[in-house]
């Protein structure tokens, strides 16, 4: 930039004269490493690194071989094949299973649409290789596990709906934001209604279905409650802020399991006699209280990150305290809390496995019971690993998803 005699204050705003050629930045290009160079640089850069490579390489080969041999040769996955439906939906009555499929289709379309406009197509050669490998593995597993033609057809429809959703989401782009947001808002009540009408009821939910329902309910309920608690904690009214601080710290200081036991034994005694609700609902309530304390702390962190000037500006515009919060502070705070919030939601999903410790027939409990069945003695690993894998796939893809949404939204760059 040339300081050609203009006032210092204008220095930064001086436009570059149009006659000047725009500076083209050329990064120094480096020829790609040959495989030999790559190995030398990344694996054998010093004698210590060489030893490390040899030792850890031996370990990887040994355990990798053992793992592959276990998965493809020595393991007997018949325990999974026999229990697949129980893992997925527990004791959900078979004649009512269409409800689950309907919900799955609805969500497939919705997730597809959201993905379509949220995440840009992301094609690297390595990524697509990986995708092909994963698809082949998944198909192989399905060929082994699913023998019914009907289920194959139903699965194919779900995949088609998802793919269609993604394509439509990409085509329509931003125009979809509002309708999809509204659909998500109504999704949960609709799903619960569809799943609990007829002869089903919350007590018949089981398997992964139960984990997902509980996780979604807890996330949906604890988010607003957590925001309220965070606002209460920052309130200038001592009575309100002390109460919120006490509540948050109490909840964060005790294990979730004790709260769930509280929900099982004590909660029902605190409400007026005659008022009863299902065990699942009590668990969801306690989960929600637990989760909202953590949401509150995340939101508080976000609120602290909002610059003081924003409050002052809102005050200068004559906004009331409520409007300052709702229109100025919270939108900025919530935006910056997206990464930790998604991290917290992932851990809520993982925490739903605690239902098993209270003998709800969730995915983990189902897997554990399958491992104790007489005909599958000695197949405990085969019974438990699929459950662990399902939890892992969902949590891991959620965290990957969140990373990509973060870069898309530019969180942390503003």
């Amino acid at each position, binding site marked *: 930039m040339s300081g050609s005699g203009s006032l210092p204050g204008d220095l930064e705003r001086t436009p570059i004269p149009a006659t000047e050629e725009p500076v083209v930045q050329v990064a120094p290009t480096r020829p790609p490493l040959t495989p030999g160079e790559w190995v030398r640089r990344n694996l054998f850069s010093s004698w210590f690194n060489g030893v490390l490579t040899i030792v850890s390489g031996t370990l990887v080969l040994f355990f990798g071989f053992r793992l592959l041999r276990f998965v493809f040769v020595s393991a007997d996955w018949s325990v999974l094949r026999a229990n697949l439906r129980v893992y997925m939906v527990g004791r959900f009555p078979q004649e009512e299973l269409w409800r689950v499929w309907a919900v799955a289709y609805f969500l497939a379309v919705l997730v597809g649409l959201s993905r379509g406009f949220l995440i840009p197509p992301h094609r690297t050669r390595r990524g697509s290789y990986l995708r092909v490998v994963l698809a082949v593995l998944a198909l192989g597993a399905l060929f082994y596990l699913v023998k019914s033609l009907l289920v194959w057809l139903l699965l194919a429809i779900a995949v088609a709906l998802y793919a269609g959703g993604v394509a439509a989401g990409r085509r329509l782009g931003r125009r979809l934001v509002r309708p999809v947001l509204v659909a998500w808002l109504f999704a949960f009540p609709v799903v619960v209604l569809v799943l609990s009408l007829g002869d089903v009821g919350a007590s018949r939910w089981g398997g992964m279905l139960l984990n997902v329902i509980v996780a979604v309910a807890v996330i949906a309920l604890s988010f607003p409650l957590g925001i309220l608690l965070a606002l209460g904690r920052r309130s200038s009214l001592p009575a*309100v802020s002390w109460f919120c601080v006490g509540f948050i710290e109490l909840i964060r*200081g005790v294990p*979730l399991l004790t709260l769930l*036991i509280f929900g099982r034994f004590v909660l029902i*005694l*605190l409400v007026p006699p005659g008022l009863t609700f299902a065990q699942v609902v009590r668990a969801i309530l306690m989960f929600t209280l637990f989760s909202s304390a953590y949401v509150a702390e995340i939101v508080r962190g976000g609120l602290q990150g909002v610059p003081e000037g924003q409050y002052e500006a809102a005050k200068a515009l004559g906004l009331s305290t409520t409007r300052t919060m709702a229109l100025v502070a919270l939108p900025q705070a919530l935006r910056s809390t997206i990464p930790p919030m998604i991290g917290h939601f992932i851990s809520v999903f993982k925490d739903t496995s605690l239902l098993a*410790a209270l003998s709800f027939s969730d995915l983990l409990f189902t897997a554990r019971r399958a491992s104790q069945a007489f005909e599958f003695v000695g197949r405990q*690993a085969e*019974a*438990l690993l699929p459950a662990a894998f399902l939890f892992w796939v969902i949590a891991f893809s959620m965290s990957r998803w969140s990373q990509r949404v973060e870069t898309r939204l530019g969180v942390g760059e503003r």
Partner: protein
Amino acid sequence: MATAASTARPPLWRNVRFLRILGQAVFVLLLVIVIREAFLNLEFGVQEQNLDLSFDFLRQRAGFAIKEGIGYSPNESFLSAFLVGVVNTIRVALVGIVLATFLGLIMGVARLSSNWLVRRMAQVYVEIVRNTPVLVQIIFWYIAVILALPVIEGGLSLWDLAFVSNRGTAVAWFRLEDGAEAWGLFLAAGAVAGAIVLRRRTRLVERTGRSAPRVLWAVGAFLVVAALGFLLSGTPVAADVPEVGRFGYEGGLQVSPEYTALLLGLVIYTGAFIAEIVRGSIQAVPKGQKEAAEALGLTPRQQLRLVVLPQALRIAIPPLNSQYLNLTKNSSLALAIGYPEIVSVSNTIINQAARATQMLLLVMATYLLITLSISAVMNALNRAVTRKGRR
């Protein structure tokens, strides 16, 4: 320009001070009503079950056995049983915190290694472990690994010094003999001697500016005194080698399958989170610090030890504290595999004495006490580290 309008008091409903008091009063009133209602319901419900809300039942005879922990018999009270649980929780939490810190440190440093393979291995570990529920991992270790080990007669043995089977693990340990007290005094004296040597060597280093081994000398001094004491007090410690007996292992340091599974699950799970903290804190130290250290002519090891790590430690302590609290709270998942810690024992007591309300209050208060103690230690550490850096 003061006129009558500005000096007039605002009406009550626009008086901010009044509104604030009113708001709080309403809030407190609502709270009191809700709590009172809940308490009355509770009292009514408890009376209907012919129970009470007092803590007297804690003195009644427990009548159930606890598999492991400090000395206890079923004839003792519920309170003693609960205390066994408390000790068992502390036993698993403290050991778990130490081991998880080691594992996390190694994995966190490995994630920053210049070796591609090591880096990737650490990453795979973190991504797999972090995204699987800890309860799934604990149950997996318990059911699929530890209980699937061979039975005790055909158990694995390591030179007859350590045994592993589905009945637990037993390793050779030490047994205190006569003269242990005397040796204890020598150990204390050795520690004092080590501290004195350390101080003198530090002064020497500071005075001359040469780098000289300090810790090595101090440890040497301690070992010399300790060895001298060992000979003088007449072999106060003997090896305690376990044997396979009729009802399980006899002698040695024995670890139950439940304890092993819980510890494995907690350590491996928390270790992954600590690894991420370690990696993040080392990366958070500004690059210029390392470059400046390099410019001063420090060796790579000195750069790490004297410049990078002290600053990384300061960043790491608050999140580490919350991981330690998580580990302690997650030890309650032992309920699912029957390791008798606080929640597991309390659950049994609730089933026997039916006083869920009092028991849960007691459990929550105990956990708050434990977590507050850990936080206090970590805060003290944090203050010490921060002050050191600012000097």
